[in-house]
């Protein structure tokens, strides 16, 4: 009778939780059983392991094989258990050295021919192995994702590779400081819309939320699509956080690792689970995939009300907590929300050339779809009007994205130099300290807050954007002119 234990992990949220694969090869009728709350994908590992072991030139013992996944109460899912099961089996039967089971963790899916394939979340597994203090044996195709700083990753292309030698540590991949920006969309192409550009510039610089309201064809989507071109790159911490979520979701994490801020634009038919995460096993939603980046909701009032309102908590907390029967999962979701909306169902309310066919009550109802609490969390509201045709044909004189991006970077650097954290997360005393309002600014804010009946949250958010505007001018204190400007972007309380 022979036994062997291999370390691996299963995903809970974006975290890899350690799991032990215990393999027992003993006398009895030749069977192959997997126990320990495996899901269907794990059960199917038996067939894949059987075929791939043979295809790699090893022998499958004609014995009773029991695989136990510990801890027992934790639900295990996914195909990443194939490799650790195979290694455990081969070590237990003496076909591989014990060292391989004792000194490594392993994750990977096996193909019938013995080649090793990546599973979603390789970066999460690699980070999990790092915290276990073990090198990770994994698929070669995931090398670029998993071999990050401080991670000892051993890539394997085929199961037969470990027959004679243990794979060496692969070189760490050095990421560029500044990612290459997709230059397809540039703000210089946009004619007019100066106010909206200004609002998006502030949103990019401070990571603030913005809503563009305007008739169809006025250029809301066109403006929002250009936002990524002025976003600052992710810092090394953010790269890992964002790449982790992408990795778990099975999306190519290369972009995030290279420092590109995510820009997610889900269609308005998205479900709650699609937007904030869910399903079984729970997958991150679009809000989490936009972590440290931008979540763009085109035609915001068309989203399901429940899905839309589910965004309130992450907008405030920066994460989503899902509670399911098999546990509680936290997905990070700190994103800037950029929305677009028509002013009314027909779309032409307030348009200078086409008459709006909606009654006032219908307009009210349409605007109410986004809802007061969500509107309260939006820092910048801009009206985007249709551009006069005569202007459309004149060449734009606006600034190029590259120039705007420099402004954004300067403002970010300034905000970071304050040492109080990102501007979009400042609250209470640290916010007041960061702003350093003078008497004039304070009075302007007080009287305007009264006039516009701003909530406490409204004042906080106003101060944050004002702080960013002052940062863009390189000013240490927020002046009354910044407060004034930002008041114009504040959604007016509808009565």
């Amino acid at each position, binding site marked *: 009778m022979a036994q062997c234990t291999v370390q691996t992990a299963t995903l809970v949220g974006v975290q890899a939780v350690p799991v032990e694969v215990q393999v027992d090869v003993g006398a009895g009728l030749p069977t192959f059983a997997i126990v320990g709350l495996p899901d269907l994908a794990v059960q199917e590992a038996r067939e894949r392991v059987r075929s791939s072991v043979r295809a790699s030139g090893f022998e499958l013992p004609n014995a009773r094989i029991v695989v136990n996944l510990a801890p027992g109460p934790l639900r295990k899912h996914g195909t990443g258990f194939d490799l650790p099961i195979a290694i455990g089996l081969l070590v237990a039967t003496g076909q591989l050295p014990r060292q391989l089971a004792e000194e490594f963790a392993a994750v990977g899916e096996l193909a019938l021919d013995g080649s090793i394939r990546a599973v979603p979340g390789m970066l999460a597994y690699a980070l999990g192995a790092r915290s276990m203090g073990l090198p990770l044996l994994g698929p070669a195709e995931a090398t670029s994702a998993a071999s990050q700083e401080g991670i000892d990753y051993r890539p394997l292309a085929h199961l037969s590779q470990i027959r004679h030698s243990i794979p060496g540590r692969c070189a760490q991949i050095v990421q560029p400081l500044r990612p290459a920006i997709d230059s397809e969309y540039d703000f210089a192409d946009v004619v007019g819309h100066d106010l909206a550009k200004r609002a998006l510039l502030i949103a990019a610089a401070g990571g603030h939320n913005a809503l563009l309201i305007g008739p169809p064809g006025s250029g809301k989507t066109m403006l929002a699509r250009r936002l990524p071109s002025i976003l600052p790159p992710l810092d090394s911490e953010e790269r890992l956080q964002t790449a982790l979520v992408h990795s778990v979701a099975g999306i190519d994490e290369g972009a995030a690792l290279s420092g590109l801020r995510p820009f997610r634009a889900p269609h308005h038919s998205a479900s709650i689970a699609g937007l904030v995460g869910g399903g079984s096993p729970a997958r991150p939603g679009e809000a989490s995939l936009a972590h440290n980046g931008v979540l763009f909701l085109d035609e915001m009032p068309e989203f399901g009300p429940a899905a839309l309102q589910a965004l309130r908590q992450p907008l405030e907390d920066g994460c989503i907590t899902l509670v399911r029967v098999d546990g509680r999962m936290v997905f990070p979701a700190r994103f800037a929300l950029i929305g677009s909306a028509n002013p009314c169902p027909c779309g032409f309310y307030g348009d200078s050339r086409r008459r709006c066919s909606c009654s006032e009550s219908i307009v009210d109802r349409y605007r109410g779809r986004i809802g007061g609490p969500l509107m309260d969390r939006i820092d910048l509201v801009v009206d985007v009007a249709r551009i006069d045709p005569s202007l459309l044909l004149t060449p734009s004189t606006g600034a190029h994205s590259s120039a705007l991006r420099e402004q954004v970077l300067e403002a970010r650097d300034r905000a970071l130099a304050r040492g109080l954290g990102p501007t979009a997360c400042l609250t209470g005393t640290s916010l007041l300290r960061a702003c350093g309002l003078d008497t004039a600014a304070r009075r302007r804010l007080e009287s305007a807050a009264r006039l516009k009946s701003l909530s406490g949250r409204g004042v906080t958010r106003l101060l944050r954007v004002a702080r960013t505007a002052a940062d863009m001018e390189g000013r240490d204190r927020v002046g009354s002119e910044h407060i004034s400007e930002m*008041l114009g972007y504040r959604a007016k309380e509808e009565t």
Partner: protein
Amino acid sequence: MREIEWPPRTGAFELRLEDPGYPPQLRATASPPKVLRGFGDPESLMQGVAVIGARKATPYGIRCAQLFAGWAGAAGYTVVSGAAVGCDTAAHRAALDAGGRSVAVLGCGADVSYPRDSGPLLARIAASGAVISELEWGYPPAKWTFRARNRIIAGLTKALLVVEAGLGSGTFITADFALDAGREVMVVPGSIFAPECTGSNRLLSQGAIPVSDISEMRAVLENQLGSPTRDSVVEMLARGNDPVLAAVRTNPSRPDDLARELGLDIIEVARRIGALEGEGMITRYRDGRYGAC
């Protein structure tokens, strides 16, 4: 260590009844104080508007004091009040914050800081206006001194605004003095259920001028003290030349169009619009244009 101390080292003055610098309107009252002692600028005693209210002020009283004293200060009228907590303090602060000046009449020696932590405020008041008393230097506060002090407040000013007063309160008494001296008494109406307002409402039924907004107060002050010397009004006139305000008033427009038509930078336009909107001069229409309220 306290940064600002009371009394200050310089700026003390004494005015005798027969001195030419003695405020004439106070000299004309039934029992003018023989000597006024104080700190600051004696010139500031020449005319002003009293803004007074109860010490045990409600938030309503405080807000009224801030609103009216703040406007008066900004308009260039000197605000006269006591130095008690509540409405008095709120009135001084609002006037000073608005860039105006104020006069505090104390119920103790002018060099005594009472209430004890009022030193910084008194110093601020004396920096542009004056802090005065009829009592000897160093005289401690007593109940009767405050009643006597009230007649000075009434005598110094040609118009008096009561923001909140209970029946029989010191404020009510001051208003009585003012009526005796033939001053204009303005009163902010209060709730009929609030004991803090029974006195002020009684004054109204006795013929005081009700004041429920700035324009009503302004009419009385212009009549009694002359036109405002500087301020909101001056600023408003200046704003008549504000191209943004003028453009928006004649034709409601969007910021983008305004910037293009006026040849101004969008940031400049956005800031002017925000400032004007924050002051309630213009408003944002539902369709995104800005226009007159």
